[in-house]
């Protein structure tokens, strides 16, 4: 399997020689290399018209001075000079990493358990459909659901209080980074489940059986067969989870108000707050987010190419 590609080329040459001698060509002529690009033109055209061009204001307006419209790099400089802005990037990245990795881990476990865990079919179907709904249950309703559950007056806390123990008097609180991460998982787990499910489906049973036949135990199967196959998809989905958390705003704002310093909240305050903000800084902040995501994506692409190499 790992040498599939070169073999293919050799076969190609052999059959074409045969073809010239015997049967007429069964395959249509290969299109010229440069024409293949036409196939992706609709996509590029669509994204240019409806994504790239409208979003390019991120770049142009980052360099605009407040009120005067003149070109300036002051906004970008402000990003680097202001400690709480740098801190906000760090916190956003931190919480996105934590929820991406945590979400990927447990999400993968959930997906695998439902698909390959030997459970009845209804579990798989219900999980997938539920995850479809839960993956976008975010913002104020989600924050409120956790508040209704875990606030000092919340349902679960009330149940625990019946035993005489009040978690809030012993240091537990929902309103921290940990609490927020816990809430974020509500849309991270489902996202992971949904996207990794086809990849898990692609893990054919025969390979598990074949590796068992060759004497491998479960751990070895995972380490040498399943995990390497899944790694590109796992990485890709983790990046997706990272981006998902990185761009989240409503949930954090509803749950922890102004306590947690996230870039998205800062952007909101500059662009759409109730008291005069600096649009240029807001767009510059957004530009910073784009740069960070670009770096993350580049890192992921490099990793992905390496892990995919043996799959070709």
């Amino acid at each position, binding site marked *: 399997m790992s040498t599939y590609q070169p073999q293919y080329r050799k076969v190609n040459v052999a059959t074409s020689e045969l073809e010239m001698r015997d049967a007429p060509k069964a395959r249509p002529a290969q299109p010229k290399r440069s024409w293949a690009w036409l196939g992706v033109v609709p996509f590029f055209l669509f994204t240019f018209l409806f994504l790239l061009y409208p979003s390019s204001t991120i770049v142009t307006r980052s360099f605009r001075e407040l009120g005067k419209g003149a070109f300036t790099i002051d906004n970008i400089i402000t990003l680097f000079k202001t400690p709480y802005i740098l801190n906000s990037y760090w916190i956003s990245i931190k919480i996105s990493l934590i929820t991406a990795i945590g979400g990927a881990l447990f999400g993968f476990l959930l997906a695998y358990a439902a698909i390959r865990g*030997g459970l009845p079919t209804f579990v798989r179907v219900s999980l997938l459909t539920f995850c479809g709904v839960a993956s976008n249950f975010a913002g104020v309703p989600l924050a409120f659901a956790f508040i209704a559950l875990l606030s000092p007056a919340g349902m679960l806390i009330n149940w625990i209080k019946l035993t005489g123990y009040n978690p809030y008097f012993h240091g537990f609180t929902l309103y921290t980074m940990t609490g927020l991460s816990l809430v974020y998982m509500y849309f991270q787990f489902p996202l992971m489940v949904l996207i990794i499910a086809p990849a898990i489906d692609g893990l054919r049973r025969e390979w598990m059986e074949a590796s068992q036949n060759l004497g491998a135990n479960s751990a070895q199967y995972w380490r040498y067969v399943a995990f390497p196959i899944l790694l590109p998809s796992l990485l890709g989905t983790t990046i997706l989870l990272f981006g998902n958390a990185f761009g989240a705003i409503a949930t954090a704002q509803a749950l922890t108000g102004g306590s947690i310093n996230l870039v998205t909240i800062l952007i909101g305050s500059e662009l759409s707050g109730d008291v005069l903000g600096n649009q240029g800084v807001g*767009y510059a902040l957004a530009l910073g987010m784009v740069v960070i995501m670009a770096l993350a*994506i580049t890192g992921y692409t490099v990793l992905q190419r390496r892990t995919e190499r043996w799959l070709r």
Partner: protein
Amino acid sequence: MKSRGKVFAWFVIILGMLYFFLPLIATFVYSLHAKLGHLSFQAYTNVFHDPKFIRGFTGSLIWATLTIIFGILLFVPTAFWVRLKVPKARTAIEFITLIPFVVPVIVFTFGLVRTYSHPPLLIVDSPFLLVAAYTVISMPYMYRAIDIGLRAIDVRTLTEAAQSLGAGWGTILFRIIIPNIRVAILNGAFLSFAIVVGELVLARYLVKPAFAPYMMDLIQNRAYEPAALAIISFALTWACMGIISFIGRGGQAQVGGGH
């Protein structure tokens, strides 16, 4: 070993279920308190009698369906073509599909409004613009789901087998590739559906009936109805997922080599 795996599987599922359902149960219990003194479904009645709710939810349903269809029509051929013929474009395309993540929706929305509210591109009022915008927003998920689905099947062999039997591109796409990545498309469809129903900013600024703006407006002013609405929307969306799942039923056929 199989039974130990099964126990572990059940453990994971039950843990997941607890995590997902407890907050919902807490919301539901709270929503029953709309009447002073005793539990009732008053909050639910209030929501169902609100014409804005019906308008908002059906609006979002329509947008979601259109977005899914359009996404399939645009992304499946593109992802397929990239895998098959133009692998060099992959980096660029993956980068583009992840851009919607990082552009704050409000920036994107203002950009859209500014661009398309002047002739000759005066389509700011057209429903197509909203569908296009929703497609863009769900692109990271939809495209990635489709890509992972394509990755799990051997596209090249399938295509060549089909071509050697005389199939044209349309047949290949719609009768071979799409059925084989059915699960992936379904999952992408789930995600797109949820995103569109939960999306707030675009619907607001492009002034089209949608569910999330209605929910937000309710949260600002009412105490119990938002909780009832959250439960209702959860249940209704789950039902819609069930319908989508039913429409796309039939497991992913293992045709052609995997890797």
